[in-house]
């Protein structure tokens, strides 16, 4: 058994933004298989067009349509591509200077070995058949590659006003030794906390340091699975991935013997009867379903005991 637990974690969202008049014009151009650059105050033609002039800071207004041929100004060989790049096999990233432009921009070149690309090489755009107004509508290929059918220039009349970039990040979550002990305890049906050696407070889930004193917490404490509702929220709003039909209760539960409340669900009670001081007990899933997860506890349910006196939890709110 390794010292600590780990698990994959994915963070994913669609980066969705309006793009304004300058980038909108550039992206509309991509959708229509045209590169749109702009002239900056120093006389250079730059693509993609900057929204504001790098020197005068004035809004960019002098747009220039450019051909879709150009020259490799610099390149590198991507020997181990990462997810989301234009190719999922080795390829070249390059700084490409379009004919008529004075500054290069970064894009991919479709070559299958580093011997097929060099500084100064002529390239041309290869447009995707389906285009939405994104950088991914195009890649570059050597100018002497067999020509594919040129795409229709304009595909729609309305300008591109926004982008959606899917962002998907994969991580390995490495639980700390304290968290690992907590999750391993759950797999045995136990709830483990840790006591601060300075202030004597018991934290659950345990954390590496006492947030009050900044010292490591070391003494392990097994806690009851019965406790008191200190505060709660009735969830009425549906959201993506919701597992329970609203309305339902999410609450802070101060387990007996703990000094910090644990967040969990309260079920088996009409939502209008939820209240501070309510005594609740963990409802565990069938043992054969247990893993190293807080989901071993399905939810908390009322014990039927009288409510706890306010004084018993007033310092834990």
């Amino acid at each position, binding site marked *: 058994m390794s010292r600590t637990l780990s698990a994959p974690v994915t963070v994913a969202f669609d980066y969705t933004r309006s793009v304004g008049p300058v980038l909108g014009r550039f992206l509309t151009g991509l959708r229509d298989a045209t590169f749109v650059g702009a002239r900056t105050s120093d006389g250079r033609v730059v693509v993609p067009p900057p929204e504001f002039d790098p020197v005068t800071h004035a809004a960019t207004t002098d747009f220039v349509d450019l051909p879709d041929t150009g020259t490799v100004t610099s390149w590198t060989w991507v020997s181990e591509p990462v997810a989301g790049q234009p190719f999922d096999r080795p390829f070249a990233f390059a700084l490409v200077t379009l004919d008529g432009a004075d500054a290069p921009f970064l894009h991919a070149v479709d070559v299958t070995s580093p011997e097929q690309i060099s500084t100064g090489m002529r390239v041309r755009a290869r447009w995707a058949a389906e285009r939405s107004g994104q950088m991914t509508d195009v890649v570059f290929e050597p100018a002497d590659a067999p020509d594919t059918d040129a795409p229709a220039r304009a595909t729609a009349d309305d300008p591109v006003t926004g982008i959606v970039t899917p962002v998907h990040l994969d991580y390995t*979550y490495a639980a700390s030794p304290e968290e690992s002990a907590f999750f391993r305890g759950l797999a045995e049906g136990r709830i483990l906390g840790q006591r601060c050696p300075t202030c004597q407070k018991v934290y659950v889930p345990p954390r590496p340091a006492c947030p009050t004193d900044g010292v490591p917490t070391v003494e392990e404490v097994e806690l009851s699975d019965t406790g008191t509702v200190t505060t709660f929220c009735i969830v009425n709003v549906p959201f993506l991935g919701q597992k329970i039909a609203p309305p339902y209760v999410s609450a802070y539960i101060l387990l007996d013997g703990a000094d910090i409340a644990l967040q969990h669900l309260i079920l088996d009670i009409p939502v209008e009867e939820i209240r501070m001081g309510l005594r609740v007990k963990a409802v565990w899933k069938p043992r054969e379903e247990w893993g190293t997860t807080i989901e071993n506890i399905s939810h908390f349910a009322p014990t039927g005991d009288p409510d706890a006196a306010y004084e018993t939890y007033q310092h834990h709110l």
Partner: protein
Amino acid sequence: MRDVAVVGFAQRQLQDYDGSPQCAEMLVPLFAECYEQTGWSKRDIGFWCSGSSDYLAGRSFSFVSAIDAIGVLPPVNESHVEMDAAWALYEAWLKIQTGEVDTALVFGFGKASAGVLRRTLALQLDPYTMTPLWPDTVSIAALQARLGLDAGLWDEAAMAEVVNRSLTDAEKNEYAVRSGGSSVEELLKRPMYADPLRKHDAAPVTDGAAAIVLAAGDRAREVRDRPAWITGLAHMTDGLQLGTRDLTRSASAGRAAAAAGAAAGGLGDVEVAELHAPFSHQELILRAELGLGADTRINPSGGALGGNPMFTGGGIRIGEAARRIWDGSADKTLGHATSGPALQQNLVCVMSSEGANN
């Protein structure tokens, strides 16, 4: 201006720190080291400022859990930057200049090994025209390296010399995660990874954390015989678009060096410079931009090629440069930090054994 000095420094660098979601656990022992160096407790710290990013390890509000390591009852005066700890140091230095506080503890932490670092860093690029292609950091640095090679500004041997010197020096750095010099010839025999870069041209993915203590005037003198007085401090940035920058240079590094140097009486007499160059050719660019003297010792710690924990790789350069003042081995040193793609953002911190007002 108040005289402000670096008076404490502690660091950890590891290839892959086991059992930590984001390396905040490292902070408790690092703060303890800072207290030991200064003889202070957390109540002596007037201001806390950290550098970190949630994207690095995929954890939201990561800086809040790092605050646990401080112990915040009574509450502390605290801030955060989504930048290397060197920029947190800049904010703390400003805070001390306002007169509101006399001391500050600056820290950073990052678990770069939690994801695919070179891919995660694509999120610092222009989100409209660059991130959709997921250009990884190594590829962008390689494009920069080739521009300089093609222009004859440096060659592969010069890059290998930087690597060989750095990894040789890193042998003496107990925190380095990569070390061991060989020879330029041996290094050039190794295969390309991101042509024209070999793996040793790029800093290793490094987990880590670091903490730096700043103090003004007499608070600094009570800690050390030779505080590292900050005599020049500046940071500058270049634009986001790679195409409109001259990538064979780092104009913002040059401007930051000019501003910090003007305050510090020039940079020609800097004895030791710790440069934050995550790629070998970037050290060559920085040396040219900073205008250091020919006999300035560069990166005696081994620099970022020996270990480059995200969000402290720059702060550690300042800490390493400060140590040379403390131990009397130098009277004027420089720490540099970079952030963003291809040396886009740069900070220069000049330190001296004499404060401007002593």
